[in-house]
């Protein structure tokens, strides 16, 4: 029951966030210089064409009126039609968003797989060589631009070793996982560095806790002590960080998708900014906002599960 009401409260809190983002996006999008027609038609269009097309998109109406239309449509579940792709925005988002979702999910998983054991190793060998090596490596990961890491990965694992395809996106689910592995790894590279740092220090904090000593005094097996007592408590703060970083991860996806030619929402976002594709841009930010909020919610619930003190 307390968990339920906790979840309910978080969902209610999401509403103002999404509304806020809706308004900001709408305004921001319209502040961008240029208009969809000129973005789309390029240099060659003559003024008459531009005006004719903008008018056909309803962009000649006053902005408040446009906003009302937009709000009305959003509430009826209609996000409009893409200006550039001439497809319903919902269709496009349903095509592109799952790709990004899968990419970030894989990246998050890989990051955890990388970060957790190494954080343990570093924490246990604190201030020793292993610790220094691990931290140094992750520092490099943290300081390398995503696109650079990406191209490096492609060159090494794709073109040279041929372990993985060089970018692109497969047809079947398994094939897609295979294609997404390198981009996910690229994204995970810096993400896991952040996680590792945090987890390492929280493990160091937890490992000296009295309850860990008590667990040892109970004569528990080291494995149980490490997982049940140390890791679980150490993860609490890492999960918070994880949630906070999800947004950043989506941001990283923008560049990763370009480098790896993954047809995801990140690239769509950039394209629609450059193409002034207002409906897509608006629809996508809303979808992303909801998605990120849901991720927050998920991490919150996970955290409430990890730490029963949270859901009072």
């Amino acid at each position, binding site marked *: 029951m307390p968990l339920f009401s906790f979840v309910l409260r978080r969902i209610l809190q999401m509403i103002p966030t999404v509304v806020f983002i809706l308004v900001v996006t709408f305004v921001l999008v319209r502040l961008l210089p240029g*208009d969809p027609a000129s973005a789309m038609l390029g240099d060659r269009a*003559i003024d008459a064409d531009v005006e004719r097309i903008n008018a056909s998109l309803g962009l000649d109406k006053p902005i408040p009126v446009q906003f009302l239309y937009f709000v009305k449509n959003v509430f009826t579940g209609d996000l409009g039609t893409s200006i550039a792709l001439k497809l319903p925005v919902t269709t496009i988002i349903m095509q*592109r968003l799952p790709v990004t979702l899968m990419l970030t999910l894989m990246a998050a998983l890989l990051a955890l797989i990388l970060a957790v054991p190494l954080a343990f190793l570093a924490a246990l060998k604190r201030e020793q060589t292993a610790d220094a090596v691990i931290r140094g490596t992750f520092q490099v990961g943290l300081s390398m631009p995503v696109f650079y890491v990406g191209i490096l990965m492609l060159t090494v694992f794709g073109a040279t070793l041929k372990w993985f395809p060089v970018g*692109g996106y497969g047809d079947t689910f398994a094939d897609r996982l295979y294609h997404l592995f390198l981009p996910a790894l690229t994204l995970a590279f810096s993400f896991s560095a952040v996680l590792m740092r945090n987890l390492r220090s929280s493990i160091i904090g937890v490992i000296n806790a009295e309850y860990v000593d008590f667990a040892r005094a109970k004569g528990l097996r080291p494995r149980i002590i490490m997982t049940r007592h140390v890791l679980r408590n150490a993860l609490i703060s890492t999960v918070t960080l994880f949630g906070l970083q999800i947004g950043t991860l989506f941001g990283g996806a923008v560049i990763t998708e370009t480098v790896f*030619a993954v047809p995801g929402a990140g690239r769509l976002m950039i394209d629609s900014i450059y193409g002034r594709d207002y409906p897509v841009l608006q629809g996508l930010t809303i979808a992303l906002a909801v998605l990120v909020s849901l991720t927050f919610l998920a991490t919150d619930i996970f955290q409430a599960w990890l730490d029963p003190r949270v859901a009072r």
Partner: protein
Amino acid sequence: VERGGVMTYGRYADSLFLDPVLNDANVDIWILSNLYDTLLLPTDDGKGVQAGLATEWKVSDDGMSVNLTLRDGIQFSDGSPITPADVAWSLKRAANKDNGIWNFLVSSIDDVTTEGDKTVVLKLKHPDPAILAALTVFNTAILPQKVFEAAAGATDADKAKVFAEHPVSSGPFVLQSWDRGSTMKLVRNEHYWGKGEDGKPLPYLDGVTFEVLPDDATRILKLNSGEIDGAEFIPYSRVEELKSAGNLNMELFPSTRVQYVTMNARPQIKGKDNPLSNPKVRQAMNYAVNKDAIIAIVTHGVGKPLTSYMSSATPMHTGDKPLYAYDIEKAKSLMKEAGFEKGFDTSILVLAGNQDEIGIATALQQMWAELGIKLELQQVDNATRTQQYRDGVFTMREAAWTDDIADPNEITSYFVYSPTIDALHTGWKNEEADKLFDASQKEIDATKRAAQYARIQEIYNAEGPIVPLYETPYPVALSKKVHGFLQIPLGNNFFGRAWLDK
């Protein structure tokens, strides 16, 4: 020749909209000819015309009409016959002033009529020397009227959206599937009329798959690893390297692509006096630019200096020596004459993240510094740049151009002829050039027309509002097993005669 197989081709961006009339961009234009056939086809050098859906064509002596005879037994990809009615309807749609942005290419068409089941007659408003060339251009492609009109939607635009999702077409290939932003799959059109060297129907390939690979490096890596058979837009910096790669053919297809800098020639910009309005200043700046150096830096020797504002692959191009050979002394004295001995501050719009444009601008910055001109680079995205361009408030910008039609009229109408877009939105205007252009548009005597164009080029190259830089071929890298692939100077990719080694 070997038949069969699917060729995978890496493109830098996905297509947007596969309607021949209503599309807007090169990403569509350059592949449309694989889907939709036109009455006439461009020759391989891109300068002439050859038979397409029509086998015979005849312009009347007064130049006011064109008679075309359709090929026997031609069919759409659904097997239905291509009738003169389809042709008439398609051409009228292309010429409709309210449709898309390409109708100016066929603006001379007044009406299209049919005669019998073979003949189509174009009635023109005035003699049009470029009409045959226009009939090779993508927007005059022939679509099945019935299927199109049966598509859901109230307006032509709505119907086009539905139709373009699963087009019934007349070209060598048909669209099989399209995963937006990722892959587009074309398969052979069983009803295509073309015949191959072996006498069997074209195309040789079972299909073509386009993969969207926006990052240059990724595209090349993928080609290297054999996952794709060809890649477009190889960065010039890699051309030399790929030429020497054993498993690849580094193709440099002749093109009509010209790279230049546009200078706003208005006396004032946003209320401030504009030194660029002085032709002497523009000439000085032209002389101060070392084109060879820029070609070396930016295109790594792939390009060559422009000899006119239009490319040497454009019909009726004149000029045999590079424009404004580097001459810094002359540049300085011109600046002095113009009263800008100390130079001035100015700026240039550069497309954000575009390495070539940044490279050019950086080089210009250095070169013009010799004249005391301080050039500020402003990286902006395309929409912003277009907006400033269209509003005429930019100072300078970089730009590139490729022709869509095998005729000098398109480029001239934009670059020179002020009524179209104010000569590249620069506000430049020359009465004589405008008059010559007007005349040339109706001049069916080829020699006379060539003379008109020679004069236009003379005027524009001497005092026009641009810094002509270089022309470059289309760099396409192909796997050694690819044969018969063609990109014509207008940019169109032809897969109809391409084949793969087994």
